[in-house]
């Protein structure tokens, strides 16, 4: 590796060639504030908060590649004044309702402003766009708080290649906008919420349903059933100060009971059910050779992405509903019958790491007989907010277990939360169902890991090969889909999760600032927790889940059977490309 020598604040340092001044300074523990910079997502150097002095010039350090002999000063009057002015200007055009802002306390603008010791804003004047867009069931946008850093645009475009939002208009009138300024609900937004995760302020957030859920809980006529996705349990603790990657399954269940939910179910059960159905579907398609590759349908962001961008491949999507929708359907049929409760008196709440699930639960196709399978979806963040509001001391809760019949789940169900998990869970079951033999090692490590596209050929005992692709992040998915369209690639089975790393980094998970995102491998930490939860399970394969076996025996019949099709499968729509 080539190195160069530079001097920062009088300290001589040798750094790798190609490194930015910001990175070099951080290597020397020199803190340079940033706002618009989000590594790998947005390198626009537009906020001008990270400027440093190089010769007579002030240059944004986030994109400045250090050069041999460069003399950099990060703490001069000129630098401090420039940083303060930029932040004061941002504040002069910012809706400063910090006390009631969803990001109050976790706002990067607030902390930069604090760090720069800004106690009054010297500039006053007209404020730019105040438009609020609450049309989307998943994501809300508040232009009054937007500082136009462009991180959301980078997340939506550079990362996800969704490109639902971009800059529009000019100068002071500049706004982040959808194409033609349409409401977000009518755009190509796939609701993944990665824009929210990228936003340093409160300009983006989930469409909150906390009040709806409180109302349901306090309605004595309703049986309120909650289910939690696998990825929630490995992130929720972060909202209460626990380290990133803490597994808090038992505390979460205890907290949900304390909140007043009548039944606390595990979406992992739904995941096991999905494997039964999707595994059968895969074997059928492999048999008929039709609609291959089978593309997973657990991720509603991915599903909508296909609907907008690759409508010719809608038939390749698995017809399986996603796990929580399957579970919702079972709650309102099997469970309702078992308990003798009218389905319309049951409210199903899903706690999800995801904002797209909010959109999904509102899809007409997912409402059997006019009754939604899932009534409300809350994000991990919303659940944390409810727990805080209820005054529950989360960190000190004693572990509790899920309720049955949907509380027992296999390790295969839990790994749905990480990229590769659905594929691995499916392979465990498909292998045993086709061979009749038991797997010696259940771990298909080849499909694990954070590589963007993982290709594998899995040989079944009968000699049949399954060509699999595991993809996470829609940017990777688009590249792969285009390669398939060009005929360069072909597969039998494709697992796609819209968010990088899978559901563990979903748009509904706890938000971390740019610095944490840069320094901690959040994906890896949460994935580790997911896999340790899998290992801790006695049952590791979906088809071995006794509750699943019971459900089929008592109610559904066979996987892919008539009843399953009625309750557990769905269809998709073609949507506009812009």
């Amino acid at each position, binding site marked *: 590796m080539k190195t160069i020598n530079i001097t920062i604040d009088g300290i001589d340092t040798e750094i790798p060639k190609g490194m930015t001044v910001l990175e070099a300074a951080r290597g020397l523990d020199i803190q340079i504030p940033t706002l618009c910079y989000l590594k790998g997502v947005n390198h*626009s*150097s*537009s*906020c*001008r*908060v990270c*400027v440093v002095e190089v010769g007579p010039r*002030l*240059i*944004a350090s986030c*994109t*400045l*590649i250090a050069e041999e002999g460069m003399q950099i000063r990060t703490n001069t009057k*000129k630098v401090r*004044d*420039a940083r303060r*002015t*930029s932040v004061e*200007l*941002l504040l*002069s*055009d910012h809706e400063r309702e910090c006390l009631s802002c969803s990001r109050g306390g976790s706002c990067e603008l607030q902390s930069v402003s604090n760090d720069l010791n800004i106690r009054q804003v*010297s*500039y006053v*004047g*007209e404020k730019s766009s105040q438009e609020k867009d609450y049309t989307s069931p998943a994501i809300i946008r508040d232009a009054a708080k937007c*500082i*136009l850093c*462009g991180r959301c645009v980078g997340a939506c475009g550079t990362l996800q290649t969704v490109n639902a939002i*971009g*800059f529009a*208009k*000019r*100068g*002071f*009138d*500049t706004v982040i906008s959808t194409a033609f300024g349409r409401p977000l609900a009518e755009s190509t937004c796939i609701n993944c919420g990665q824009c929210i995760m990228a936003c340093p302020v409160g300009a983006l957030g989930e469409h909150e349903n906390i009040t709806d859920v409180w109302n349901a809980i306090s309605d004595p006529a309703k049986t309120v059933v909650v289910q939690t996705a696998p990825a929630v349990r490995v992130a929720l603790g972060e909202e209460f100060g626990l380290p990133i990657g803490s597994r808090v399954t038992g505390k979460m269940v205890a907290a949900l009971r304390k909140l007043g939910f009548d039944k606390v179910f595990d979406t992992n059960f739904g995941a096991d059910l999905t494997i039964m159905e999707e595994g059968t579907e895969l074997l059928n398609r492999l048999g008929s050779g039709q609609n291959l590759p089978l593309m997973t349908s657990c991720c509603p962001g991915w599903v909508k992405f296909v609907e907008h961008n690759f409508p010719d491949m809608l038939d390749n999507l698995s017809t399986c509903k996603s796990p929580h929708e399957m579970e919702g359907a079972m709650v309102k049929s099997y469970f309702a019958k078992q308990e003798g409760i009218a389905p319309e008196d049951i409210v199903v709440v899903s706690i999800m790491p995801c904002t797209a699930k909010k959109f999904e639960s509102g899809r007409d196709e997912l409402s059997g007989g006019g009754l939604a399978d899932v009534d409300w979806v809350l994000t991990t963040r919303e659940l944390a907010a409810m727990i805080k509001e209820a005054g529950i001391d989360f960190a000190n809760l004693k572990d509790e277990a899920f309720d049955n019949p949907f509380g027992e789940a296999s390790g295969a169900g839990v790994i749905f939360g990480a990229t590769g998990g659905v594929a691995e869970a499916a392979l465990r079951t498909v292998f045993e169902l086709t061979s009749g033999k038991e797997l010696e090692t259940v771990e298909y490590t080849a499909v694990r890991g954070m590589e963007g596209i993982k290709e594998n050929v899995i040989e079944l005992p009968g000699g049949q090969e399954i060509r699999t692709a595991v993809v996470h992040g829609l940017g990777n998915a688009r590249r792969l889909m285009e390669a398939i369209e060009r005929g360069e690639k072909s597969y039998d089975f494709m697992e796609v999760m819209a968010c990088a790393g899978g559901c563990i980094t979903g748009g509904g998970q706890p938000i971390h600032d740019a610095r944490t995102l840069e320094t901690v491998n959040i994906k890896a930490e949460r994935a580790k927790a997911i896999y340790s939860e899998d290992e801790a399970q006695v049952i590791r394969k979906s088809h071995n889940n006794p509750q699943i076996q019971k459900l089929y025996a008592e109610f559904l019949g066979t996987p892919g059977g008539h009843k399953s099709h009625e309750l557990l499968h769905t269809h998709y729509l073609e949507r506009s490309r812009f």
Partner: protein
Amino acid sequence: MKLLTDLDAIRTLSKGLLDNRRITGQTPESIQFRSVMVCGGTGCTSSDSNAIVDALNKEIANLSIQNKAEVVRTGCFGLCELGPVVIVYPEGIFYSRVEVKDIPEIVEQHLLYGTPFEKRIYEQTRKDGEILNFEETDFYKKQVRIALRNCGTIDPEVIDEYIASDGYTALGKVIMTMTPEQVVDTVKRSGLRGRGGGGFNTGLKWEFAARQEKQQKYVICNADEGDPGAFMDRSILEGNPHAVIEAMAIAGYAIGANQGFVYVRAEYPIAVQRLMKALDQARKYELLGDNVMGTGFKFDIDVRLGAGAFVCGEETALIHSIEGFRGMPTPKPPFPAVQGLWNEPTIINNVETLANIPQIVLNGAEWYASIGTEKSKGTKVFALGGKVVNTGLVEVPMGITLREVIFEIGGGIPNGKKFKAVQTGGPSGGCLTEEHLDCTIDFDTLTSLGSMMGSGGMIIMDEDTCMVDVARFYLDFTRDESCGKCTPCRIGTKRLLELLDKITEGKGTLEDLDKMESLSLQIKNSSLCALGQTAPNPVLSTIKYFRDEYVAHITEQQCPAGVCKSLISYEIDAQLCKGCSLCARKCPSDAISGKPKEPYVIEKASCIKCGVCFDVCKFKAVMIV
């Protein structure tokens, strides 16, 4: 295939044609053939010069004197205010504001009988009862036309005429007799600096790009001229498009690029149309394409239309616009010469810069470097505008003084008013005062005075101009044209404008003035691109040179020039008012009342201070107080 020999043949054939288009000093009787040059620039086309061309052709045909005269639609002559302009060679008679109805007389009197048509002769060509040829007028005689060469003497839509005027000879010379290094060296030694605003050494820019070891490189011509009032690039493209094409091919050869782009404003339809036509012709002659002049050198040019965003004149924003993205600047480094269009080495040169290149190649670096000052070589085209007698385009050698340009070439301030300031460099520049009139015009002097060369806008202001209002005007422009990307430019210019508004409304404080200065410095220091880095210049230079005016607005709530609406009111002087009622009839808000033949009165509460009464009163009875 057009080889050098083919070009020579064309040149020989067409040379005679061009020989007719110069002033010879022949006696009227001895003149056998006249060339009638009609300006086809945007200004004259707007005043319907096309109809003049048609009428001339028709009349010449009527009189069957096609053997005695030709009609040529040319590029811009520079004196746009006088359009439509017609020049007749070889006498060099300059007709201004010609109308279609004048044509039969012009044709009959002048073309048939050799007597100039008195009625439309440009006043400044009359001297002591004689009619001067236009080159002897103050407006033209100090000009040195290199970039504007051929503008006004050839038909820009006929490639043969450009070739006859030594066109494409430089390209031939470069490809066949010079190495790319020699070309770069020639341009470097000429001292040519970028005419688009930055003033960076052109040859050095080429050298950076030439040094990059990449297969794919690009040459971009920046024709996204955006400064209010500046139109030299448009005029060059309209009047001499082949010079730009030739220069781009030379640049391509020098840096190792085979593809060029012209990024031109869609609001320049005539320039675009002539450029497209010229590109077609050049391709047909194989002066562009896969095998230029049979040498195997490959170069072609595409045109990209800009949608009129000022910021797209900034190199990186322009590049992103060509790439299909929103025109927003990105930080430099990396400079385009290293990583430009589609991340490949790219040079971006302004139209006027490029227009100099063929002449530099033909006449040598030393020739070019002999013109101008030590650090600013050659000539510069300025668009003279505002309160000056001769408005239009002028090309002058670097080092000329502001006084010479404004008072000699420009003819001074009209209506006997006093000169107050000159604004150079457009929205990025600044205002200079009477004390600077004898300063030389060159890159470094203008910058040292707090203004800049910019792309060559030069707006002259008289005593009726409020300098706070001028600063406001320019800042309003940059605030509007900011791309909105970086904080200091997007919000800073807005806040600065709000402070200026406060002052023009008489609500400002002296602290606001300090705040404006400090905010201006911050915007300059920390903006991402040159738009923001220069946006406060009009504010800073007016505060520097006209602080008293700001203070008057603040402490006395007065606008000394009587411009700022909030600080003035209109009154009618009863002594002077004849009671003609014109003002009352023109007033859009019915604020003026009175009886005919008695003094009228303005009702202040209803007055919207539009100034119509002031403008229409023939007796100067309306006063600004």
